[in-house]
């Protein structure tokens, strides 16, 4: 159900130099799938800021966001009890229909996979997780994932934590290329996973959005099954429908 909700900030914590975790008090009952998102009104900006749900309960939402400009910078300055207006009930999210799934997150693409991981564990499954960061200083949520699964791998571009290299290097090295996957992160990473895996995956994509709820066609991309609005039919698309190439 799409609607506008007012949330109250319960906490707003800095996790790394530019990554923040905000817990919001308010309706979380609309969330049906991990990977859905909310579109937050930020002060003095014309458009809202789409941010994926990291975790949720009946009466709360957790978002983990990166400060990239004035809008998210404003968000990072909010204090406990401040109010946030958000358009909620947006996006399709991940479908958790497979027993054994590989979850791969890169940087600020990691948060929606935390929600997916938590749900899968609740369902009695033990997902395998790969987290990719630029460097050790950018790491967040490793401990939180570790509480959910011991099948957890990390890579950093500079080798300061885990394997030196990219998440797809972790896949190859640890024989994880034959497991259906869920992923979110920077586009080059998503494409590398697409090429490396022998399986189909669910890929969460990012686009600059106008409305965020399917009206303006600002975020449409072409797929094998016609056009898809990232905000409405996405953000999660099946790897099979993307017009990407394996080579």
């Amino acid at each position: 159900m799409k609607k506008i909700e007012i949330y109250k900030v319960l906490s707003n914590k800095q996790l790394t130099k530019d990554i923040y975790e905000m817990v919001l008090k308010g309706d979380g009952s609309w969330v049906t799938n991990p990977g859905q998102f909310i579109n937050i009104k930020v002060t003095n900006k014309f458009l809202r800021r789409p941010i994926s749900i990291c975790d949720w309960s009946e009466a709360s939402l957790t978002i983990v966001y990166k400060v990239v400009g004035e809008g998210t910078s404003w968000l990072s300055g909010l204090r406990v009890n401040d109010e946030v207006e958000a358009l909620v009930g947006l996006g399709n999210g991940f479908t958790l229909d497979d027993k054994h799934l590989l979850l791969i997150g890169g940087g600020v693409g990691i948060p929606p996979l935390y929600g997916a991981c938590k749900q899968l564990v609740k369902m009695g499954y033990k997902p395998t997780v790969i987290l990719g960061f630029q460097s050790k200083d950018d790491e967040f949520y490793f401990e939180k994932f570790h509480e959910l699964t011991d099948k957890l791998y990390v890579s950093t571009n500079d080798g300061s934590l885990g394997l030196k290299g990219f998440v797809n290097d972790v896949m190859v090295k640890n024989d994880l290329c034959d497991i259906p996957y869920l992923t979110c992160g920077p586009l080059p990473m998503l494409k590398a996973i697409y090429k490396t895996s022998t399986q189909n995956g669910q890929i969460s994509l990012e686009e600059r959005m106008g409305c965020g709820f399917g009206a303006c066609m600002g975020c449409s991309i072409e797929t094998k099954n016609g056009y898809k609005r990232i905000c409405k039919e996405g953000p999660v698309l099946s790897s099979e429908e993307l017009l990407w190439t394996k080579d």
Partner: protein
Amino acid sequence: MDKRLAVTLSGWELDNPVIPASGTYGFGYEFCEFYDINILGSIATKGTTLEPRFGNPTPRIAECEMGMINAVGLQNPGLEKVISEEFPKLQKVFNKKVVANISGFAIEEYVACAKAMDKQDIVGIIEVNISCPNVRHGGMSFGTDPQMAAKVTKAVKEVTSKPVYIKLSPNVTDIVAIAKACEEAGADGISMINTLLGARFDLKTGKPIIHNIMGGFSGPAIKPVALRMVYQVYEAVNIPIIGIGGIASAEDVIEMMYAGATAVQVGAANCADPYACQKIINNLPSLIDKLNIEKLEDIIGRAHR
């Protein structure tokens, strides 16, 4: 429903002057989850072309101070599907007539669209877009030359008995000349203005944010430009004007009507807030009380008297 809000466009009485602008409202039904869309005066439906169009590659959107740039490029399922699928879907949730926006790359395409729209009961007005800045070889080129604008107007008028409104581009030296040419060619009304051509560049990379480099700038920032142009065109023509450009509040509606608009269209505001049109309609009665306006029709063109 407040009778004081009613306005008439070419003999068609609207409950109120608030119409979501083409391209910002899809075919209406996306907004049903937010509010009952039957409160609207009408809906200007998504720009329809003879053939289906995907539009431009992403990024198609760039935020601006007080507005946004879009370069969607007339994405639409094409005339046939709009009539066989989108209109019936809209009719299930909307019981008023629409402003059917059509676009083309050649006069024959406008004519084909107008011919088909003429047969649709749901269509109250045919709005001819000769001002899309986001497609090459056409669209806006018809809207920047008075002779071409007149040609399209005439051709469309010949194939329909429904009122024909021409949607004008602000990206011209003299919008009055184009409006006059449309009126002389038989246009029943003018919709104005479409978006202003704009661009944004990424501070870090120095590259354009929009894949197409340029796009249409809309939102509250363009309101003064729209007000000025509506004012000028109202002076020069005798056909009704639908005022478009930066409308985001009930106050904006009043101001646009003072300039000369009979009705208004709300565009970019729908992207920032899906409830924008509802809020405007809800706020109009108390605002006209406050301004001692007896009924909205009285204030059309007040700035000229």
